[in-house]
């Protein structure tokens, strides 16, 4: 519990995270509203663009600790290490759940379908943002470097949909669609996030820092 409070304090005492959360919401809403002009069913697809600033935020909350050396202070305060990543994940999840819900609500109100807020589609959009945040956090704790982590996450998200355009083999195409983070079932995406986060935690525990 102490570690969670400490990580929450870290999150709110630098200006970066708040701005990136705001950007996540703003981009999600703006894209959603624009897409709904084409097809109202696409209103909640705004999160597929809004996830970019969110990925940056989720990477930076751990990679900036490595770039500044703050990670040594953090791991000195919590030498068993894994609680730090669990706490970061929880705090991030809470922040994204609130931001994502507000963004979805705003999108639906603007597009005139506010009654659809309590729906599976809304929950799925918010859940998607949370999983992307955790995937990014895990990736960054593995790579320790902002640029490498952001590049990896964006490649994981946006390369497979491009590749499927080039693949002619229908079986391969379906497989890629089913397992790529962007297009997969939320359960598969959750598996991606869990894998990245566990691998990251394991490496943070093992490495000399």
């Amino acid at each position, binding site marked *: 519990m*102490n570690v969670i409070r400490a990580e929450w*304090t870290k999150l709110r005492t630098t200006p970066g995270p708040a701005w990136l959360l705001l950007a996540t919401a703003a981009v999600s809403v703006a894209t959603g509203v624009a897409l709904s002009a084409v097809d109202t069913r696409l209103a909640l697809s705004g999160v597929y663009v809004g996830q970019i600033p969110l990925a940056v935020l989720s990477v930076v909350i751990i990679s900036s600790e490595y770039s500044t050396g703050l990670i*040594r*202070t953090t791991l*000195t*305060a919590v*030498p068993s290490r894994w609680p730090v990543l669990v706490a970061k994940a929880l705090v991030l999840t809470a922040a994204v759940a609130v931001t994502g819900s507000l963004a979805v609500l705003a999108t639906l109100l603007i597009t005139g379908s506010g009654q659809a807020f309590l729906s599976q589609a809304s929950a799925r959009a918010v859940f998607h943002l949370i999983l992307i945040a955790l995937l990014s956090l895990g990736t960054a704790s593995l790579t320790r470097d902002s640029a490498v982590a952001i590049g990896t996450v964006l490649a994981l998200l946006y390369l497979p949909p491009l590749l499927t355009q080039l693949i002619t083999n229908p079986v391969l195409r379906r497989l890629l669609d089913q397992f790529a983070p962007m297009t997969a079932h939320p359960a598969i995406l959750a598996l991606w996030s869990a894998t990245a986060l566990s691998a990251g935690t394991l490496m943070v525990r093992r490495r*000399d820092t």
Partner: protein
Amino acid sequence: MTDATIEVDGLHKRYGAATALRGMTFTARPGRVTGFVGPNGAGKSTTMRIILGLHRADAGRALVGGRPYRSLRHPLRHLGALLDASALHPARSGRNHLVWLAQSQGLGRSRVDEVLAQVGLESAARRAAGGYSLGMRQRLGIAAALLADPPVVMLDEPFNGMDPEGIVWLRDFLRALAGRQRAVLVSSHLMTELQGMADQVVVVGRGRVIADCAVADLIASASGDRLRVRTSATSLAAAALTSTGAQVTETDQDLLSVRGLPVERAVSVLAAAGVPFSELAPHRATLEEAYFDLTRDAVDYRSGASS
């Protein structure tokens, strides 16, 4: 073993082809300031990182109050450390840096304000730490080390970047901590910084301990039984003193170093020969001289051993 100790026992550490530690062994005890001295690259920071559980030793162990650091639930309550004063987020205020640290140890905000006052950083506490001078960052790092009022305090090169006023403040501060039965371990690559402050010095070179002794003993042994004689008539004085069997060397213009003669005897010899002198006193080595004596011996020993 009391809580207020650091025991380092036979640490070995390699980084790839480079060997950082070769059997580092020493103990920092309560009520003393232990100076941890050696040239850059001697293994001081590596040892401290291993004590804090940041790096793992290949062999040997480091215990804080008898326990490995990584097994401590609220470690800052056992050991307060400053490794790198710049290890903070530049956009976060100094105060908020301490707030999250305090929360991680289950401490209240009142401790944050107390330690800020202790290190004299209240006026800058709400500014972003990225704008702090190195001296201010050192003070913030010391505040962080003191947050949980631990029985052991360990500081890596805390004098770096401090102004003269800050250096005097920190010396007095560390002496006061030792006075309250804390164990204080302070590393430095400059022996002069520890003069008049450390009780014990652990001198290290190339990953192991060269000497581990009380400062008073170290200075006494380096001083030897030498006298300083200041006189304008150096050749007359040298002749008179040499006739008694003492060894005389001219160390500076108008200054002789005499070995093997008590002060009173030297006075009477010079008086009898009618040699004027303006000063005659036992030589008292500085900590730095003692350090050079030691490290020179270590170098001789190494070159002797390899040939």
